[in-house]
């Protein structure tokens, strides 16, 4: 016999400014199954909600330390959404490396960190300076 539990969850859709208040009926067992989603005004809402409930995806932004640049850090982001649950491992990868200036917007600084299918790309130019004054 399969053990399962039906629960209702509320979400505010973030797809557009309408911000529909969605209600989802989910069955939580060995796998989460979304049974019903109500309250959406368009078809994008339920699709988003199902993804959000089963495997929420996020893009994250952070910084990587730079040697010899006009900024001590280069800001970075994932170039595609990654599962929410991989964020902490991706952050570990981001924290563990150091790059050398110059860096250009869009440069790939880490490929497929923590087994994800995204890359970590630079989101700002960091120019090379020859008088590095510390940090």
């Amino acid at each position, binding site marked *: 016999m399969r053990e399962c539990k039906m629960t209702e969850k509320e979400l505010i859709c973030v797809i557009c400014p309408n911000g529909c208040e969605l209600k989802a009926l989910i069955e939580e067992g060995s796998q989460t199954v979304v049974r019903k989603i109500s309250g959406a005004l368009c078809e994008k809402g339920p699709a988003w909600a199902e993804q959000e409930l089963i495997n929420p995806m996020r893009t994250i932004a952070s*910084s*990587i*330390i730079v040697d010899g640049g006009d900024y*001590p*850090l280069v800001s970075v982001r994932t170039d595609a959404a990654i599962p929410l649950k991989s964020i902490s491992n991706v952050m570990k990868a981001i*924290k563990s490396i150091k790059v050398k200036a110059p860096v250009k917007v869009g440069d790939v600084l880490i490929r497929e960190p923590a087994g994800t299918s995204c890359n970590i790309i630079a989101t700002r130019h960091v120019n090379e300076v020859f008088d590095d*004054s*510390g*940090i």
Partner: protein
Amino acid sequence: MMKKCDVIIIGAGVVGNAIARELSRYEVSIAVLEKELDVAMGASSRNSGVLHSGIHYKPGTLRARLSVQGNAMMKDLCSDLKIKIEYIGKLTVAQDEDGIETLHSLKEQGEANNVPGLEILDQEQMQQIQPGVGGIKALYSPSTGIICPYGLSIALAENAAANGVEFYLGHGVTNISKNSREFVVNTAQGEEFEAPVLINSAGLFSDRVCEMLGIDEYRIYPCRGEYLVLDKRLKGTLSTLVYPAPRKGGAGLGIHLTNTVDGNILIGPSSEYVDEPDDFASTSEIMTQLKKEGHELLPELSTTDFIRSFSGLRAKQNPPEVGGYKDFIIESRDDFPGFINLVGIESPGLTSAPAIGLMAKEMVGRFVDLKDKDRFVSERPGSVGFFHELPEEKKADLVAKNPDYGEVICRCEQITKKEILDAIQNPLRNSTINGIKYRSRAMMGRCQGGFCLPRIVEILKQEFGYKPEDYLLQSKGSPLFSGRVR
């Protein structure tokens, strides 16, 4: 380390610094011990910045004599020290017949104290001085002035230091003893100082210094006054100070508006006894009250004009149930020859400071020989005021000579990089963020450092090699940051 000198001064507030500066005219070695990392961290920086005329004090008291004398000395002193001072005068306003009676007795008292130029004005004359002022009659005291209180304290210390006085900042006194000839003072840093003359100018902590010597007849009851600081948008709204006629038995002069020499207006101070001599908190009850009174006193005031609150503490000698004022204690103790004790120097302590310096010098002269120094430098280098207060042509000249004047770091107060660098490289070698703030005025404007603190942090990093753990707000226990991100 043991350090021998002629005079030890405990407390680098305005009084201690004025005494130090006065004594620095003579061939004596002086050590000033201060528990904080900067001078003027207690009552000396936390007040209205008013130079009182001397009408409020009973004739024959030290408060009467020293405030009138100090007020008269201040003009030359400020010109030597490059400190802004404005004798903007004061209207003490009566709302009713009782009030008028109070004005007349204040005038009489002031005249007995030799306060110059006192006049009772009618409504028409009052309006000429301050258009829109309420009340039916007023006592006008033209010698009332305004000054930057921490500016004066810092300048006195810097000038004293330039004349050989040694300032030991961050040296809280932990123990005092007296051997046959000398006082021995220990500090929290484990250092020992010895001198035949010991001066207690510890302000809110002066009773504790007395206790260390076994003198237990004094106790300080800190009485807090809260203030609100208004945006410079309202600069120029007041041309003179306006105070209500005092109530009997009050601990302060009542809530009023005070313009500062830098263009802000202060609302306050309140009056409330607290337990701790360093309880500088602000309270929501009093801030609400100050705002309400502020709106009544200044109809142009908008809710977005409040930029900061602060509070100061009055070193009261009377407990709260007694209230009111006691005269300053300034004594050369017979039981401890060489101990010059100053207790309860509350208002008008700022005004009186230069005169207290003279009085203390006379007392010191009975114990050590005060021989004139050949090279006493009375003037502090630099010029009065800030870059942004100069005429445009003069600004252009300065920027052409030194590009650091061209770079404005604090946008609200328009403080330049040159002024920030000067503040960082101050003669007393204070290296805290508040030290930079009090010296340069950066971070004192409407954004309260939101924009310029990051830039100042950057300057300290790039030009002085600061690491994240080196930044202190005010004291050793007040680090700004917890470390690096990466």
